[in-house]
C-alpha cells in the first residue's frame, strides 16, 4: 500500500506553528494515501529528543524522512545513515547553514531562521522614523535554543548592516530574555518599555509580541508608536495586525511546509523525480493582508 513517511522536528505539540505544519502534512498524506507520522518532542526545542525520535522512527524503515535541521552537526550522522539505507530525506523549515553541502538531505523546503530574521528587520526598517535615534529591543524568547537565537541573530545582522548604511544616525539595540509565554513576555517587555519609553521597535523571535500589543493598547499607546514584529501567524497576532499594533510578521506558510515535502516524496517515488528545494514564500506579512489571512488562519491553513 501507501508510502511510509515520518516527520520529525524540534518542537512540541503545544506549538501552534507546528500544528499548522502537521495539518498540511496530514492533508497531503491523505491525498496520496500515505501512512504518515509526525513526531513532536516533549520539550520545546530539544534537539537530542529529535535525534532519538528520528532513530526510533528509522528503525521501522520508512520510505521517507522529513526533518528540520536545526543544528549543523547533531543530525548529520543520523541523516547520513538514513540516506545510506535508501530513505529519502528532505529538510523542512530549517536547513543546515551550509545548505546541501553541510548535510546529506536531498532537498530543503522552507526558509532558514537567520535569513528570516534578516528579512524581518529589513521589512520593519521601512517603518523606522526618518529622524532621530533608533532604539531597538530584541526579545530572545529562549536563550540558547537555536531557533530563537538564530532568528534574533538575523534581526541583529540586519541592524548591523543598517547601522553601516546610515553611519550618522544613532542606532542601538538590546537583547532581553523575553520568555515563551504570552503573559511573561507582556510583563517583561512592558516593564522594559516603562523604563525605555523611547524604544522604536520590538522584535520577538516568536509570536509572543501579540501580548505586548495588548499592553500598549492598555496603556493608551497608539499603534505604530512602538513598532512590533515577529514570527509565525497565530490568530492573536493577526488580530493585532488588524488593530495596527503589529507592523510586520514573518510567515513561512507552515501548511505549505507540511504539504509540499510529501508531494516531493510522492513524485520521487512514483515517477522518480528528484526532490528539489522549495522556497515556501518570502514570508513577510503586512497589515493589508491581515483580513484575508484571518480566514485562512482560523482554518489552520496559515
Amino acid at each position, binding site marked *: 500500500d501507501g508510502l511510509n513517511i515520518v516527520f520529525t522536528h524540534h518542537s*512540541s*505539540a*503545544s*506549538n*501552534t506553528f507546528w*500544528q*499548522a505544519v*502537521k*495539518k498540511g502534512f496530514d492533508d497531503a498524506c491523505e491525498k496520496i494515501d500515505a501512512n504518515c507520522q509526525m513526531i513532536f518532542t*516533549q520539550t*520545546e526545542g530539544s534537539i537530542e529528543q529529535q535525534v532519538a525520535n528520528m532513530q526510533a522512527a528509522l528503525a521501522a524503515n520508512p520510505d521517507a524522512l522529513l526533518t528540520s535541521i536545526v543544528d549543523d552537526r547533531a543530525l548529520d550522522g543520523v541523516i547520513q545513515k538514513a540516506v545510506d539505507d535508501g530513505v529519502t530525506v528532505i529538510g523542512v523549515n530549517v536547513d543546515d547553514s551550509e545548505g546541501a553541502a553541510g548535510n546529506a538531505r536531498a532537498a530543503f523546503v522552507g526558509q532558514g531562521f537567520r535569513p528570516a530574521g534578516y528579512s524581518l528587520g529589513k521589512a520593519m526598517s521601512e517603518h523606522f522614523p526618518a529622524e532621530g535615534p533608533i532604539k531597538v529591543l530584541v526579545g*530572545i524568547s529562549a*536563550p540558547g535554543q537555536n531557533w530563537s537565537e538564530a532568528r534574533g541573530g538575523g534581526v541583529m545582522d540586519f541592524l548591523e548592516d543598517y547601522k553601516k548604511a546610515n553611519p550618522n544616525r544613532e542606532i542601538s539595540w*538590546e*537583547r*532581553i*530574555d*523575553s520568555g*515563551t*509565554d*504570552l*503573559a*511573561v513576555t*507582556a*510583563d*517583561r*517587555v*512592558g*516593564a*522594559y518599555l*516603562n*523604563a525605555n519609553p523611547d524604544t522604536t521597535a520590538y522584535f520577538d523571535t516568536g509570536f509572543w509580541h*501579540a*501580548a505586548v500589543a*495588548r*499592553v500598549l493598547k*492598555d*496603556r493608551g499607546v497608539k499603534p505604530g508608536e512602538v513598532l512590533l514584529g515577529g514570527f509565525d501567524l*497565530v*490568530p*492573536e497576532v493577526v*488580530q493585532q495586525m488588524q488593530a495596527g499594533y503589529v507592523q510586520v510578521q514573518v510567515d513561512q506558510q507552515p501548511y505549505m511546509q507540511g504539504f509540499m515535502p510529501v508531494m516531493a516524496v510522492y513524485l520521487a517515488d512514483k515517477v522518480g523525480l528528484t526532490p528539489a528545494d522549495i522556497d515556501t514564500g518570502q514570508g513577510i506579512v503586512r497589515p493589508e493582508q491581515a483580513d484575508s489571512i484571518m480566514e485562512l488562519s*482560523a482554518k*489552520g491553513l496559515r
Partner: protein
Amino acid sequence: MKRLLKISLEKPELAALVLLVVLIILFQIRSDGVFLSANNLRGIFGILPEIGLMVIGVTILMICGEFDLSVGSVFALMPMVMAVLLVDGTPFILAFLAGMLACAAIGFVNGYLTIRFNIPSFITTLGMLFIARSLTIVISGGFPPLLPNDLPNWLFTVFVGPGDLFRMSFLWFVGIAILASLTMSRTNFGNWVRATGGFLPAAKSMGIPTARVKIACFMLCSMLAGFAGMIQVLRLGSPLPSIGEGWELQAVAAAVIGGTALTGGIGAVAGGVIGAVLIRVIDNGLVLSQVDANWFKFAIGFLTIFAVVVNSWLRKRAKSIKVEA
C-alpha cells in the same frame, strides 16, 4: 519590642515580607523610580493574580503534605475547554462550569491515584502534567480557537480602582486569598489540612478523614489553577495551548519562599502570596535593571536562592533572640 521582633520574624511569611520590601526599594532605586510607576505596577498587578491564585492552591496542597506538578497544564486546559465550548455556542456560564468541572475531575484523579495506590504525588501529577497538556492540544486540534467578543470581561479583566491600577482579577485574587487564609486558620477543615500534612499517622489516628482531606486539597488546587488560567486567557484574548508551561515549578518556589515546608504541615497562604509577589517583583525588576538576556536566568536563579536563604537566616536570628515566652 525585642519580643515583638522575635515573634514576627519567626513567622516565615513575615520574614519573606521584609525581604520583599528590601527588594522593592532596591529595584525602585536601580530603575530610577520606574519600578513603582503606575504603568509598571499595572503590569505587575495584571499577571500577579494569575500566578497568585495558582500559588494559593499549591500552598494549601503542600501544607497538606502533597505536591502538584500538573497545575501548569491545568492552567491551559480549563480555558481551552471553555473556549472550545464557547466557539460551539455554549453560554459563558455553562462553559465556565464545564471547565471548572474538568479541573475538579483532574484534581480528583490526582488525589485518588495518589492515595489509593499510595504512590508519591510527584509521579501522579507529573503524569497528569503530560496528560492534561495533551488533552488541551487534542481538544483544540492544535489551534487556539478564536474567543467570541461578548465575554464578561468586566467581571475579570477590566481596570478598576484608583488610577485604574488594578484589574478585576486582582480583586478576585485578594478575595480568594483572604478566604483561603481564613479557611486555613479559622476552620476545622484548615486544622485537618495542617494535621494531615504535619504527621499523617497521628492525623489518621485522631480520626481525621485524611484521604478525603487530601483529595479535597488536590481538587482545590486544580480548580484554582484552572480559574487562574481562564483569567489569563480573558486578559490576553487567546487560549494558546502552551500557556502555563513551567509555572508549576514557579508556584512551588513561591510557596517555599513564603515559608511553606515541602514536607508538609508548615506554611501559610499569606506566605505563598508574598512568595508569588516576590517572584513577579524579581522578574519585573530585573528587566528594569537591564540585565542581559543571557544572564537573565542567572539572576532569577540567584535571587530565588537568595530569597530563601535570607528568609531562613532571618528566622534563625529571630529564634536566637533570648526572650522567655
